[in-house]
Structures are given as C-alpha cells and as structure tokens.
C-alpha cells in the first residue's frame, strides 16, 4: 500500500481503478525504424495529427452555444497549430533523418519548441508553451490509441463492476479534458498541479466528486489499473490498499454518503434554531463562478466575496471595465445580497502586478489591505468605481478590510464621496446607496467597535486575523502555531464586544472567519448573539444542521459562564457541554 498526500477537494471518498492520462515525456516510447518502413511511420504520424484534429472538432461541436467563447477560442487556436507546418513538418524530417518512431520524433520537436517558448520573457506568452504541449499531447494520444492502447478516453463504456468507475490520474487537466470528463462517469481525479482554488478544484466541486490536487509529482508512482482510495477530506490517495483498509474505507464511504444525503435534504430547509431564531448562513466565495454553487446551496447570500483572485497570476492588474464586467456577472446570477470585500493584499499576500517591498520583516503588520489601498488610489479607485457601477445589477454591500483607526475611515468616506461624484458627473449608472461596512479583525477595531458601529452600516468579524493579532502569533509559523486558540478568553470577549456594539447601534454584525464555518463553535456563537455567519461553501449545510439542533435560550447562560472562565481546559469542557 502506498499513500500520497496533496490538497483534498470535496469531502467524499472514492474507490476505483486508476486511469493514468499520459502527459509526461518519459512514458513516450522510443525505438528505431528500418529505412524501408520510414514512409509508413510518417503516414502514421500524419494520420494521428488528422485524428487529433477530428477529436478537437468533435469537442468544439459539443460546446454550448453560449458562455464557451473562451474555450472555443482556445480550441480554434489548437486546431490551427495542428495544421501549422511549423508544428507538423519538423517531426517528419526527424523521422526521416534519424530513423526513429513517430512518438519519439514528436517529443524531440516538442522539447525544441518548449525551449523556444520558455525563452520568451513575458508571463502571458511564455505560458503559451502550455498550449503547444497540449497540442503535442493530443497527437501523442492519437498515436498511442492507434497502437492498440485505448488512449486517454475510452470509447467503450466502462463495465460496471465492484468498482463503479474510474479515477483519472493526470499531471493537469485542460479545459478540453474537463469537458470530456463530464461525459464519462468519473468517480474522482487526482492531479500533480492545481490548488484548492484552481479551476480543476472547482470542477470537482461542481461534479460533486472528490479530488486531490497539488500532488507535486506524486502521480508518477501510480499506474493504470491500480486500485485507489481517494479521501477528499484528508487529501490522501491510497494505492493498492490491503483488504482491511479497503473495508474500513468502504464503511466510511457509506457513512459519508448517508451523511451527505442527509445534509442535501437540508438545502431547502430554513436555518432557524429550535427556539425559532432565524440565522443567516452566507457563503465566502473567491471566484465569480462560485456564485452558482452558493445559489444551489441556498445560502442567504454571499457574506464575503474575496476580490483578490481577479488580480492574481497576471502581470497587469485588471482595469475598471474588466472588474465591472466580472462583478456584474456575479450579480446577474443571484438576487441575494453580495458583500464585496475590497482588496485585501500586501503584506504576506503578494500579487504579481503590484510591486511591494519584500524586505518588510513583519508583513502582517505592514502596509496591507486598506492601508495599501488608501496609499495607492490608482489601484483602489477603479475597484470602488466598478463596485458602485455593478451595484445596479443586484444587492451589493461594500466591506473594507483591516480598519484600525478613524482617520482611515474618514479618508475612506471622502474617497467614496469623490468616487460617487465622479460617476455622477461622468453620467454613469450606479447605486449611490451601497452600504459600507468594516472588517473587525484588528484588536484596536474590536475594542472600539462601538465607535466604528456609529459610522458604518455593518460590521464583519474576521476571526483569522483577529486571533493572530490579539494573541501575537503568526499562524504560518510552526513554532508558535500551538498558541493559536480561538477559545482564548480575549478572543471570545472581543467577539462579544463587537456583537454587542452592533446590537446597540442596530446594525448587522456578521462573522466571516474560519470560526464561523466550524460547527464546534456554532452554538457558542449563537449564544453570544451572532445571527449572521459567512463560511466556505462546504460548511454551510453542516452549520445549518447544527443551528437547527440548537436551543439558543439554553445556550446563553452557559456562554455567560464561558466568558468568565480562565482555565483553558475548563473552557474546552464548557464548549463540549454546550455542544452536547
């Protein structure tokens, strides 16, 4: 048995047979061809190129008419590349001159092209070597298929057996692959590349199957036909498990499935407690596409749209029009409120297009989030304008991260006023009444939450940073990680202060940190008076279940006691009691 670790996507377990998609050159066969058979080998290559083109055309024909222009454009480019003498002539010469097989010749040419493209000093264009590699892989796939291998995608239906389907093992999956993936009854997939927020991961979530991404080369240990167990929650792949492990996972899989069905049944149920308290369970999203999942889960709205993603992995930051387009796209797909958190970057969250001082010793305390944005209006203003303009398409709230003092707030209000005046003067259609809220994630803001509440339309507690700043521990530093404690009395008090400040000022207070999505804290937070939670999409139904099983009137007195307890073991015991 072999265990590989990566980033798990989805919480399910899949058991199935591996199908390794050939994408790496060391699997390309290499052999000599007798001189009299060279022309035949060249024909074989030409035929493979033709069948690769037919495959692409077939995929193109299956695309929906709308919303696929990007993929269609890429497929079109790939078709042209297949047809380009610069791609398909050189391998022919290599076969002829070196007397080697088509696969090897093609790979040799691919390596040369790769070298040329990786020499291009521009992130957009050098990444086009990926397109070249994908096209070459299509031809390789066609060559191997013709050699008796059924190829990447079996044409025949997978026989239903004990293991109901296949697990796709790949270096990475392309948009075209993902379309084909949709057609086959794939149980799970695992890839070397990708992160939990990559498009691959989103695809897995939308197909409701587990996936492990970011295995960093781990797939080289796997072969087609291996029996695999995929544990999406733990991010682990088990290859050729022993019978006992397999049995244990079969049982867990059943359990998860039942629990999943139980949770699915809650989608249309209300998020109200046993004593009739209505709670808003919102989603945290990062990609515009995730709004669909938020809608299908029946989330109360988007409590936190992290706008940073549109700025990542690119050399030039997006302009107002692009932002306006993406923001409108989200709002056009929901009638529920969407809270846009303005750029939370700088410090430890670096973005390519924005230069920053890398020599800062304490980035978390540096010029980040609203500090950076107020300093760099060329960065901030287009975003504010785009949010105001997009707001006519839906219900928008604007949330500002990392506020710590009132000068920032005053500057923000002056800037927002200026933005609105400009938009009005320029004749843009916009919504001037977008509610403005502040993140309470710096202890200074939590302690003076009542003063912030007087000036703002809503507050949102960001627990991750609040804990890090209050306890003075760096979450990513392994040596002090053990001090990270959401139940520290100071944290609970700061949360309580903030909730109470909101109630006194009659403005909504939400929580959007990790604590809000952890069912261990749901009851405690309800007892503290929190009524608005925002969390990862995967947590919504679990938390809803917990809310529906809670009687807040019984919890409140226990929470009173909790807030006065100093002994950490006692605190944890009380939380267990609350959850009992």
């Amino acid at each position, binding site marked *: 048995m072999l265990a590989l670790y990566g980033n798990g996507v989805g919480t399910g377990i899949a058991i199935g047979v591996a199908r390794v998609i050939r994408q790496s050159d060391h699997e390309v066969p290499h052999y000599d061809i007798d001189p009299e058979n060279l022309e035949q080998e060249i024909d074989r290559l030409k035929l493979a190129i033709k069948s690769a083109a037919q495959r692409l055309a077939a995929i193109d024909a299956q695309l929906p008419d709308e919303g696929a222009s990007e993929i269609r*454009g890429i497929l*079109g*480019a790939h078709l042209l590349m297949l047809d380009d*003498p610069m*791609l398909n002539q050189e391998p022919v010469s290599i076969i002829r001159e070196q007397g080697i097989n088509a696969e090897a010749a093609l790979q040799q040419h691919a390596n040369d092209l790769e070298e040329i493209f990786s020499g*291009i*000093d521009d992130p957009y*264009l050098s990444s086009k070597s990926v*397109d070249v590699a994908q096209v070459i892989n299509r031809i390789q796939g066609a060559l191997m298929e013709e050699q008796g291998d059924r190829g990447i995608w079996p044409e025949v239906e997978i026989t239903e057996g004990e293991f109901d389907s296949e697990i796709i093992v790949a270096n990475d999956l392309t948009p075209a692959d993902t379309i084909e993936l949709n057609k086959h009854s794939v149980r799970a997939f695992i890839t070397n590349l990708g992160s939990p927020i990559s498009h691959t991961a989103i695809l897995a979530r939308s197909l409701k199957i587990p996936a492990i991404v970011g295995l960093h080369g781990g797939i080289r240990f796997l072969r087609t036909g291996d029996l695999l167990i995929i544990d999406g929650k733990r991010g682990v792949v088990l290859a050729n498990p022993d019978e006992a492990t397999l049995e244990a996972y079969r049982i867990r899989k059943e359990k998860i499935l039942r629990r999943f069905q139980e949770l699915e049944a809650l989608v249309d149920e209300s998020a109200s407690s046993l004593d009739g308290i209505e709670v808003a369970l919102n989603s945290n999203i990062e990609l515009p596409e995730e709004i669909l999942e938020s809608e299908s889960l029946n989330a109360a709205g988007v409590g936190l749209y992290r706008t940073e993603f549109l700025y990542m992995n690119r050399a030039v930051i997006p302009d107002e029009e692009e932002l306006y387009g993406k923001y409108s796209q989200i709002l056009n797909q929901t009638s529920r409120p969407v809270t846009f958190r303005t750029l939370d970057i700088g410090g430890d969250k670096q973005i390519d297009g924005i230069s920053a001082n890398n020599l800062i010793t304490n980035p978390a305390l540096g010029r980040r989030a609203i500090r950076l944005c107020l300093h760099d209006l060329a960065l901030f203003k287009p975003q504010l304008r785009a949010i105001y303009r997009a707001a006519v398409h839906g219900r928008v709230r604007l949330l500002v991260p990392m506020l710590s003092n009132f000068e920032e707030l005053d500057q923000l209000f002056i800037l927002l006023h200026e933005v609105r005046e400009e938009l009005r003067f320029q004749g843009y259609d916009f919504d001037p009444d977008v509610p403005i809220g502040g993140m309470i994630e710096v202890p200074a803001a939590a302690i003076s939450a009542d003063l912030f509440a007087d000036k703002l339309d809503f507050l949102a507690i960001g627990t991750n940073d609040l804990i890090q700043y209050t306890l003075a521990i760096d979450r990513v530093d392994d040596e002090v990680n053990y001090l990270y404690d959401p139940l520290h009395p100071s944290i609970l008090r700061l949360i309580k202060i903030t909730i109470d400040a909101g109630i006194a000022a009659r403005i909504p207070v939400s929580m959007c940190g990790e604590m809000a999505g952890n069912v261990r804290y749901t009851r405690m937070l309800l007892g503290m008076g929190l009524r608005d939670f925002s969390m990862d999409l995967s947590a919504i139904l679990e938390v809803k279940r917990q809310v529906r099983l809670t009687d807040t009137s019984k919890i409140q007195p226990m929470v009173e006691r909790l807030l006065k307890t100093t002994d950490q073991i006692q605190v944890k015991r009380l939380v267990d009691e609350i959850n009992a």
Partner: protein
Amino acid sequence: MIVHRQIEVINKLGLHARAAARLVKVCSDYESVINLHHGQKSVDAKSIMGVLMLAATQGSSLELVVEGEDAVAASDEIVSLFNNCFDEGE
C-alpha cells in the same frame, strides 16, 4: 505590390493564442505573402506557431510587410484587427 506598415500591439494580453488564431485566420484569406517583423524575428503571419513565437506583448511595435495582388486590402484588415484588440474587447 509591397505594402509596409507599422503596427502597435495595444491589447492587454498581446498576441496570445486566441488573438494569434484570429490573425492567422484573417491572413489566410488573402493571396499575398504576409510577414511580421519584431526586433530580430520575422515570421509568416499565416502560421500560428510563427505568430506565437514573435512574443509580441502589449506595447510591442511590429512591422507588417505584405506582398501580393491584394496587399492593400490585407494590410488594412490586419491593422484594424490589431486596433480593435482582435474583437476581444481589451
């Protein structure tokens, strides 16, 4: 007839795969021989691989050389394609 024209790449992503595909398709409709020069490089504008290898990013200045009967019409359409950001809106 030979037409020489200077072109500036104004779209944000430069001559990326989709834009290159558009350009190649437009050029392929003309009889003329169409070449693009960028620095030391010179490529056939009817070859997508060639166009991609030009590595023309936003702000690059290219020289277009069209030779043939329909050179004027071809160069006009190519220049307007660049100026319209390959109909991609940015």
